[in-house]
């Protein structure tokens, strides 16, 4: 499933979507940035509650297909603008990380 298609679901809201055609091949959940960089795989959807500027750098370097901000977390405008410039798709959801992963697991097969 592409990131753009995922955003069409009512549970998700696009924060910035510069590359909506990217495919999601799996999920990684984590808030410790180095841990995420060491373990997340290319084209994973990365679910986190971290929202500082370094999230954009980590998402770019680990080449995840999107960042999903769980629990209703949002990005400040300057962070969203940086993410968009770096070509990082960012999505927000009110779901917790576990519920988000369950939903993704059921639809990206």
């Amino acid at each position, binding site marked *: 499933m592409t990131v753009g298609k995922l955003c069409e679901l009512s549970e998700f809201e696009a924060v910035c979507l510069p590359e909506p055609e990217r495919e999601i091949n799996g999920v990684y959940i984590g808030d410790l940035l180095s841990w995420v960089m060491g373990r997340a795989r290319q084209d994973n959807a990365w679910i986190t509650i971290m929202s500082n500027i370094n999230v954009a750098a980590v998402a770019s*370097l680990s080449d995840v297909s999107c960042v999903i901000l769980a629990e209703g977390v949002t990005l400040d405008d300057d962070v969203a603008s940086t993410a968009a410039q770096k070509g990082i798709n960012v999505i927000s959801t009110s779901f917790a990380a576990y519920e988000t992963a369950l939903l993704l697991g059921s639809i990206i097969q």
Partner: protein
Amino acid sequence: MSEPLVFHFDIDGEDFISAGQASIQIKKNLRRIGLDPEIIRRVSIAMYEGEINMVIHAKGGEADVKLYEDRIEIILADKGPGIKNIDEAMQEGFSTASDTIRSLGFGAGMGLPNMKRYSDEMEINTEIGVGTTVRMVIKLA
């Protein structure tokens, strides 16, 4: 042997917010050259961890990335406090980072382990009160 292509960066130690600029620039440069995406990912993550370490612990430093025909070398040099115990620092989960750094999602004790994980060779030369130089090699063949 032909001369390597060298990219040099000064890492600003005062600016944690924009840390990662050098790594992201390297990623762009290597993409433009057309290297394998997995190699680019390994180089840029290894370098980012080093860059973050230099910002957190050493007030910045210098990074050189050398592109040879068969390998990429990343050399990170700082004039920070040095690493007291390299074996300890190499353990996943060991960190001396502050609570502020941890609140930003770093300081998980994964920096050096990730650098080792993503490189084929890694050497650390460190001297207390003088600084640390880390050399990483990622093979292209």
